[in-house]
């Protein structure tokens, strides 16, 4: 057994994770900002789920005022800071930039946003209304969706109780996002900015279904916003999945980011094709794994991870194998020693097996095949809350759930891709709708 216990120490972060940071030197910012055409009805803005005024903030950089750029970003997106770090811009704003096909490529919106947000401080957020409303709102889950929702509601004058199961707020920003994107305790700095003021009470260590009940919240508060994320891990449903050394990626990353010792193998296989698969593959390499193979059952175009992310993984020495389906994991004395993979081919847009199964000797296997919503969390009193076809909380276009007075947003609903920026956009939309509904009530 060759797993070693590694702690993600500050030294390790500096030496191996820091070099992967993507920042634009301040000296290059004016030049990059000048590349923006300041388009009217800009396609990049349409592509941003939170409608950030991209040409507007870029112009503020061009005229030498990056702090005003930050102000502009925060007007549209209170989590503009983490979005600048984690958004896969190559599939969002930058993909739509009119300079896409030109020399030099799209305007590097993400990096300009990151540079602006380095100036962030609580006074750059839009001022809260002076009016204090009597209504109280419960927000459950302090990830991006819950934080954005709580912040926006407080800004509108509501008193907000923000319940979080974990010891710290931040959700996946704190425990899921790749560590090299969130260096310098970025998640906690942002949380501190978002919760500035006395209208939000953060109550950590309070889990819905364990410490608080939905029915109780509904009677104690004028409205409830559920932003629970996805706590369950999909399983491969193959033999050997429960052997030591076979781990779901997301809880592993959470432990790593909390600074707990995590096991690192020498020869590692990652199963999956999305952002999480890339993240675990890259980070297990950075933690010291000698050989990392990422196996995906279909071709490169079908992968959830963008071409840029796939390249990032290759640059870190990750070997990506397409058309490999896991069959079973072989154990010895309870530890995993090998994985069996079935080669597949594409036939009429379906993957079918072809050829002999392969046996690879490995000492660690990560599964990164998606997460699911855990309806068990709230026990019985949530039974009346309707779920959608994918087992997520069913909501209407305004993020109302099937229970009156209860809204939901972020990863726990299925209206958009599971991205930080969509979680914020969901929260914006839900807050607007709450404002409308609550006004009618009083």
């Amino acid at each position: 057994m060759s797993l070693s216990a590694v702690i993600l120490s500050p030294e390790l972060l500096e030496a191996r994770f820091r070099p992967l940071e993507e920042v634009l030197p301040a000296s290059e910012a004016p030049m990059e900002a000048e590349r923006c055409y300041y388009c009217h009805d800009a396609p990049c803005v349409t592509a941003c789920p939170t409608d950030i005024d991209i040409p507007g903030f870029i112009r503020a950089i061009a005229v030498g005022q990056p702090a005003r750029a930050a102000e502009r970003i925060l007007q549209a997106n209170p989590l503009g800071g983490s979005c600048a770090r984690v958004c896969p811009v190559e599939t969002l704003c930058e993909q739509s930039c009119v300079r896409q096909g030109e020399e030099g490529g799209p305007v590097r919106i993400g990096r300009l946003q990151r540079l602006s947000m380095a100036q962030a401080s609580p006074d750059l957020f839009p001022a809260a209304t002076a009016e204090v409303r009597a209504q109280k709102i419960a927000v459950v889950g302090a990830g991006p969706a819950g934080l954005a929702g709580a912040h926006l509601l407080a800004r509108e004058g509501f008193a907000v109780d923000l319940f979080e199961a974990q010891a710290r707020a931040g959700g996946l920003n704190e425990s899921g996002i790749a560590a090299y994107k969130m260096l310098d305790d970025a998640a906690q700095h942002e949380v501190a900015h978002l919760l500035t003021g006395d209208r939000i009470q953060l109550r950590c260590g309070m889990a819905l279904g364990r410490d608080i009940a939905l029915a109780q919240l509904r009677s104690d508060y004028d409205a409830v916003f559920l932003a629970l994320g996805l706590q369950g891990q999909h399983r491969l449903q193959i033999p050997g999945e429960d052997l030591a050394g076979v781990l779901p990626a997301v809880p592993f990353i959470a432990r790593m980011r909390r600074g707990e010792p995590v096991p690192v193998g020498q020869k590692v296989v990652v199963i999956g094709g999305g952002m999480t698969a890339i993240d675990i593959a890259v980070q297990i390499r950075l933690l010291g794994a000698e050989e990392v193979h990422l196996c995906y059952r279909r071709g490169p175009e079908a992968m959830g991870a963008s071409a840029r992310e796939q390249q990032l993984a290759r640059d870190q020495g990750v070997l990506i194998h397409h058309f490999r389906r896991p069959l079973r994991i072989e154990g010895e004395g309870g530890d995993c020693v090998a994985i069996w993979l079935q080669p597949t081919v594409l036939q009429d847009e379906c993957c079918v097996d072809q050829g002999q199964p392969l046996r690879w000797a490995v000492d660690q296997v990560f599964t990164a095949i998606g997460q699911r919503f855990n309806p068990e969390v709230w026990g019985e009193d949530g039974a009346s809350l309707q779920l959608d076809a994918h087992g997520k909380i069913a909501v209407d276009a305004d993020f109302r759930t099937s229970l009156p007075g209860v809204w939901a947003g972020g990863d726990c609903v299925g209206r958009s891709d599971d991205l930080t920026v969509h979680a914020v956009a969901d929260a914006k939309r839900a807050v607007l709708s709450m404002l409308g509904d609550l006004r009618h009530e009083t």
Partner: protein
Amino acid sequence: MKPDLSTEFVGIRSPNPFWLASAPPTDRAVNVQRAFKAGWGGVVWKTLGIDPPVVNVNGPRYGFWQGDNRRVQGFSNIELISDRSILSNLREIAEIKAQWPDRAVVVSVMFPLEESVWAEWLPRVEATGADGIELNLGCPHGMSERGMGSAMGQAPELVEMVTRLAKAHTGLPVIVKLTPNVTDITWGAVAAQAGGADAVSLINTINSIVSVDLERMAPMPTVDGKGTHGGYCGPAVKPIALNMVAEIARHPALAGLPISGIGGVGTWRDTAEFMALGASNVQVCTAAMLYGFRIIEDLVGGLQTWMTEQGHTRLEDFIGRAVPNVSDWSQLNLNFVTKAKIDVDRCIGCGRCYIACEDTSHQAIGRVADSGRYQVRAEDCVGCNLCVAVCPVSDCISMAAMAGGVDPRTGVSITAQPMNWTQHPNNPMAPCPSGEGQGD
């Protein structure tokens, strides 16, 4: 608290100092409506003339010079004044003013030198509820061939006469818009003041041929094979406009004459510069034409941000603050010595400063042995600033003032005692240090 941008210019109030200059952006009610919605503080309506309305060319009327990234640096036009009937313009002005009482609406006019015309039309302009009149004495193409526009603005006696005519027939404040196509901008300003002007605005556009179509061998814009000189505006004219504003602001006889600054304003910085040199507000044309009215958000936000950084709460805190520091060359301190200094750690070794200084300045830059970087020899540097201009790296070369010691180039000790040209021994006109007569 955001800084207060509200202004009062010759008694005309507006929520911010940004007015749209008399030009296409203010040509009709639909445009002005959109502009006010976007947040502009005021407009100077596109210049009105008497009927029958002028006729514009139907070919291209704009030419331009684009810099890197195809951004327009200089813009040129051969458009005339409003080509719509004066009555329809007045009707729209009245509607707009009624709807936007808190915004400034000034009406630009260009009438011939006939008293009856002024007597008939100025009261009708006043009846719209407009806040003021601007006299277009600057349009340098087309109208000038008809004896108006810059043809009037270039003759100080005509400027005075027209201003007096206008003042005689309206109680509204009269702003005289000056042409830059003159030897000395202050002559026109003095004349306007003598005629009773309440303020001046400047600059109008500059005579120019912006480019030549080398296939058709004709100036651009080319109308059926021929072109005419146009009026130049946009970022490229800002330095000329700034100087003219400063010349008026520091002219002793013109003290207190309000100035509306125009010419190449497109950012908060341009605005702050015009105002520091004595303009009480600014007018914008080209920037709005290039980016649309939404640019106002950036102008307002940018100016407020800068003011906050500086601790300014009102525009008066900085209007005119740079005027006392604009002086004649003869007053500059010749004992003030600066030397260029290269930050070796930032130097990327491109050699541009070296070749510029070596070929065209004072051979004061040399390569540091074995490093590929460059360094300044203080004993040769005259402190001219050329290397700073050519260095592609920001904050790499700086000019540092010598506070004491000996200037290694001249061997002269640095003194805190200033000396300008009027006091310099090399100046044959300077008083003799010994106090003897000057031998005249």
